[in-house]
């Protein structure tokens, strides 16, 4: 049901006429996003079924609070978003007011001494890091890309990032937070007048704010947040120059005391050993994978054109790499002093050798050497993920957190077999068996891994194959009791067998009835049920749960 004129005027009075709209042309912009074709009723390439009631753009925390209070007063559901990467950023239920936080885009402060920045919701990592590097700090940009909101990443969404081996998972990088609760009350996590911590007094309400996955707008609106930053051993600005193989630019000059390595391992067991040993040695600023050689080339070529990948295949480049490499790993060494760098290099090579891994000859000479040193360094640091969307469709089967052994057990050989069956059926891109992306966190204390595949978002068969692949992967996980599914990053996508809400409901009893606990918390914090629940817990079905 549309907003009544009177209620619309209430919201208009809060933000001003220019900052609210219910025009179709505006509303449609909030129905198309990455992965919408996987939602019920959305044919490939089409929009989400539900338009928001209106889109409102608050300019301050006070306006956000006033909007949320009005939502409670008039029974209007709301969904906040910031940089909104993915269909989960929009409500999947009807009659929801969309609160777009894009006007709140200020870096409030960078506390260089204590290593954190206070930001509003629409400050992307690239904006934050450009400023942070000037004072010797660096933020752990989400792997979704540096265009993503730093605040959303640490408070509301996911925590994976390429620099996690040094900087940790972003669920752990939030400090003080300003939060408009679902009922419109505003609180500060941590001290009322400072941002250096978000924990206390007493139990930390960060536990309600988010878990492994954030509340995705289902638990109020976070209006400011202190993001923990990490030491940056590099220059205050990174100078680039035109050129490079695939990104159109490259480092203008090499980074001092930094080196990107690609190390190959013959099998997943060796890969695991290598990762554990590198974690123990604490010599890597970043440890990550982009899958095997064919997948890596597909991603790299995607930045240029589809034809580039064809050209590379025809030139034999991909096949040559596939013959020499098996399960490569990318490591970034980055040191503060020459002494430290010398030690890192020595230990790194010792670990590689002892684990039975190797540095392929091809990456020790041009052009791959240049690619790693001049371009891949930017990818790691700048976290430029536009490469991933080759062919227009890019999906992950699920994202798992866990120990290296447990994740590789599940996402190694079994994932290869699964993927190749779907490659043979021609529903997804044929880019080799190993397409598992991963990041390490806290010196490989745990890792994140996802099975990636490319598909045609405008092709119904391709989309359906993806839905089947995801269903099969999830079902296999269940049968093998691998125990990751609850840690699924929850892109809120259904699969060929059921909706994501149905799947979470099925999973709940296997994981301590987490869905019931979440619903209890939801009802305690959102008594009027106005914060959008379509991407929270088991979604709208939770209203019928007996808790």
């Amino acid at each position: 049901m549309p907003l009544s004129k009177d209620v619309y005027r209430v919201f208009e009075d809060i933000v001003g006429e220019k900052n609210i709209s219910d025009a179709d042309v505006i509303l449609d912009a909030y129905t198309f996003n990455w992965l919408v074709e996987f939602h019920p009723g959305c044919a490939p390439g089409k929009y989400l079924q539900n338009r928001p009631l209106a889109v409102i753009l608050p300019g301050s925390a006070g306006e956000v609070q006033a909007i949320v209070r009005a939502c409670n007063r008039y029974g209007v559901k709301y969904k906040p978003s910031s940089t909104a990467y993915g269909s989960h950023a929009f409500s999947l239920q009807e009659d929801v007011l969309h609160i777009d936080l894009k006007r709140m885009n200020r870096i409030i402060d960078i506390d260089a001494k204590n290593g954190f920045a206070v930001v509003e919701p629409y400050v992307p990592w690239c904006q934050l890091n450009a400023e942070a590097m000037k004072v010797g700090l660096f933020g752990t940009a989400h792997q979704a890309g540096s265009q993503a909101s730093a605040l959303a990443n640490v408070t509301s969404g996911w925590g994976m990032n390429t620099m996690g081996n040094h900087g940790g998972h972003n669920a752990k990088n939030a400090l003080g937070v300003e939060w408009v609760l679902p009922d419109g009350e505003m609180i500060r996590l941590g001290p009322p007048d400072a941002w250096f911590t978000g924990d206390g007094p007493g139990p930390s309400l960060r536990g309600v704010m988010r878990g492994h996955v954030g509340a995705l707008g289902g638990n109020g609106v976070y209006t400011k947040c202190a993001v923990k930053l990490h030491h940056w051993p590099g220059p205050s600005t990174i100078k680039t120059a035109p050129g490079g193989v695939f990104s159109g630019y490259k480092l203008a000059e090499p980074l001092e005391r930094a080196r990107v390595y690609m190390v190959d391992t013959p099998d997943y067991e060796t890969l695991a050993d290598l990762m554990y040993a590198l974690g123990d040695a604490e010599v890597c600023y970043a440890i990550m994978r982009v899958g095997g050689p064919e997948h890596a080339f597909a991603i790299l070529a995607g930045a240029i054109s589809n034809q580039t990948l064809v050209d590379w295949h025809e030139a034999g480049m991909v096949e040559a790499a596939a013959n020499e490499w098996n399960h490569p790993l990318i490591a970034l060494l980055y040191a503060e002093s020459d002494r430290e760098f010398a030690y890192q290099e020595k230990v790194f090579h010792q670990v590689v050798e002892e684990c039975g891994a190797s540095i392929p000859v091809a990456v020790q000479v041009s052009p791959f050497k240049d690619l790693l040193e001049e371009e891949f360094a930017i990818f790691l640091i700048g976290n430029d993920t536009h490469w991933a969307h080759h062919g227009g469709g890019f999906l992950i089967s699920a994202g798992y957190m866990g120990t290296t052994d447990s994740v590789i057990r599940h996402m190694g050989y079994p994932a290869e077999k699964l993927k190749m069956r779907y490659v043979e059926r021609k529903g997804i891109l044929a880019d080799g068996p190993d397409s598992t992306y991963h990041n390490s966190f806290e010196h490989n204390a745990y890792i994140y891994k996802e099975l990636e595949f490319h598909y045609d978002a405008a092709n119904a068969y391709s989309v359906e194959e993806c839905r089947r692949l995801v269903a099969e992967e999830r079902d296999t996980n269940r049968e093998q009791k691998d125990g990751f599914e609850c840690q699924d990053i929850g892109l809120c996508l259904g699969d060929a067998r059921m909706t994501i809400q149905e799947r979470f409901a099925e999973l709940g009893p296997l994981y301590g009835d987490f869905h019931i606990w979440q619903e209890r918390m939801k009802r305690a914090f959102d008594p009027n049920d106005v914060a959008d629940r379509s991407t929270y817990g088991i979604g709208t079905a939770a209203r019928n749960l007996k808790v």
Partner: protein
Amino acid sequence: MKSAKSKNLEGDLAAIVGAEFVSSEPGETAAYGADRSYVPRKNPDAVVRPQTREQVRAVVRWANRTRTPLVPVSSAPPRFRGDTVPAAGGVVVDLSGMNKVLRVDRRNRVMVAEAGATFEDLAPLAEAAGLRMVGPLLPKAGKSILASVLEREPGIAPRYQWDVSDPLCCMEVVFGNGEFFRTGEAAGPGGLEAQWKIGGAQKFPCGPHQLDYHRLVQGAQGTMGVATWASIKCELLPSVSSLFFLCHDELAPLVSYAYKAVKRNVGEELFLANGKALAMMAAADADQAARFAHGFPSWVLVHVINGFERLPEERVAYQTADAADLAQDCGLALKKRVDGLGSASFLKRLRTPGAKPYWKHAAKGASQEIFFVTTMDRAHQYLPIVFNEASRAGYPASDIGVYLQPMVQGSSCHMEFVLPFDPEDERDAERVREVFFSVSRALLAAGAFFSRPYPAWAADVYRARSDAVIPLRRVKSVFDPNGVMNPGKLCF
């Protein structure tokens, strides 16, 4: 003499845990009715000592049926903070009998321990596996590891603390409503052993899904439920270690050094103390504490640089050279000795959990502690507040130990004042009582953030934070709807 109520409780609880594990003898209950804090004595009606998780759950369910308050306790006495003194009688759930270290996992650098396992229990097992837990500064003998991480006691190696919740990974908890729950990666499916079989290690703390349950149990002083085991992140055992003292009359240069060293990952253990506190940490007895304190400099930073499995000497060498450069930048120098205290002997003490005497009691036999969270660059602002308040009450400022522990990779800092007193001297004890409250009030008024509000501070802290009280009570209503868990603590 036992009351009829106590006899009834004893009977009910004996049916759950067995008669030998429950007592309502006044002599036994009295041991839990008071601690070294200023919380008024209130003896529990009974003490129950469950031996299994199922017994813990049965006790919590019984408490819900009978609306009986439960107070979980896992560390051995003496206890200091008032959080385990029953505010409303009821039953103390003493978990010290559940003290097994269930697993030490070298490959994943993690261990799993039951609630009653102490730092002394873990250390030799971890060491045998080539690991160590980087715990709080000189934990007292009998301190439960689980209690320590639930209390968010800061570890002494800030660069390993990505989050204030570290090194806690996962835990099992019986929430106040009597339901089991395992947090983080441990949530399921299956129990510990089933997860170990597939390579799991209960390492990832977040979740499951969209809540972080561990954060809501930490800092809760037993008001949300009873934790039965926890998995704790460990680090490699150093094979070579070098401890340095950096000394100065002013705090500022040491703070500058601490920021640089922590941010750049130079060394591991790092903390700051005034001469008095360092003397207490290092001394074997009161006389030695007095001698040390007399000769020690005003401020000392303790920094340990370690080598591990790979090229350990080379690591210590390069890090020492880097540390020396940082020190020079700050007008400081790395020293291996500070007036009678050698680095090797102090390092040995630092790595001996449960060493006696407990450092805060070394000077006079007893002490009171006041601590809060701030940042290192703000710390100096609180010194005159404390010293002036103490002097006003006739307590010598020179007797006060000050301990600064950088936390969460240097983004914040635990600041602690230790007020030693002679427990045999009533006047001294009374004077410290007066100082404790006046200093606490002054610090609160100055904006000190008491993130762990133990009973002496809770009322004042929450009075000023009504914004936090309502959401915390909502959380409480979810986990402990009948309010049986440690009522009268925090804002519940």
